[in-house]
């Protein structure tokens, strides 16, 4: 039998200026109440934010608040970083939902002094650092696509987008780059 476990192929993307694609990642959507959050935090040894629109980052892992009972858990692929088995075990007794969506979306990085301006071509949020500080994350819209936007640095954002919208998003940002002067 053939082994295709290394044959992972993401969508073909042509990111424009200021945009780059990030490597594949392991992703889970965790749903549940405060007890689930607390249990997950313990099992992962990672802050799972209780505050709205905040992300916690620890090395190769992160937890992003997406809703009052919804978190996006990220870990770099291949490592045991996701600690998925431990998490499942810890949540066993609690009403919750844990769904692997590693392949549902891909990640882009938008970086540079013009990052805010570039995103402002299609994102209606106030991206000024005073309104959207480092560590803030939220689902929002960019052009005609839904994204998760996470500010990872003064001039750096991470975008998570469903894979079939990634081509559109790259093209949109490439076009927008012509207009940021």
């Amino acid at each position, binding site marked *: 039998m053939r082994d295709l476990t290394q044959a992972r192929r993401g969508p073909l993307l042509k990111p424009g200026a200021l945009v780059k694609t990030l490597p594949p990642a392991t992703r889970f959507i965790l749903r549940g109440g405060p007890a689930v959050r607390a249990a997950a935090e313990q099992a992962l040894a990672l802050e799972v934010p209780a505050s*709205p*629109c905040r992300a916690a980052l620890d090395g190769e892992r992160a937890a992003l608040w*997406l*809703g*009052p009972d*919804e978190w996006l858990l990220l870990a770099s692929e291949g490592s045991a970083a996701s600690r998925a088995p431990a998490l499942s075990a810890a949540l066993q007794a609690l009403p919750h939902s844990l769904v692997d969506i590693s392949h549902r979306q891909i990640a882009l990085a938008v970086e540079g002094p013009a990052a805010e301006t570039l995103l402002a071509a299609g994102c*209606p*949020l106030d991206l000024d650092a005073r309104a959207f500080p480092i560590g803030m994350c*939220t*689902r*929002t*819209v960019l052009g005609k696509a*839904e994204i998760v936007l996470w500010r990872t640095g003064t001039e750096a954002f991470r975008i998570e987008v469903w894979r079939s919208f990634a081509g559109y998003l790259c093209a949109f940002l490439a076009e927008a780059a012509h207009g940021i002067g």
Partner: protein
Amino acid sequence: MLLIQCPYCGERPEPEFVYGGQAHIARPQPSAELSDQEWTNFLYRRNNTRGAHAERWRHTHGCGRFFNALRDTTTDHFLATYKLSEPPPRPPAESAE
């Protein structure tokens, strides 16, 4: 493009939201015991209020939560937004001068 105060995420632009129609219409259960007219009222009858209108919004492209809002349909200004679990605030008196 309105600005809407999501009870969870704060003030956000309208494109992140989906309108959900009139609020506080509970689906009668079990539906089988209702008369045709009662069921029709649930399905179709709407206040279409001119003034303070209680309505549902969902922060679909945000936290995903439904919530309720009180909006003046003669100005489109929101008087309040509140979680589903919260009772509706009383609409303010006729004029806010």
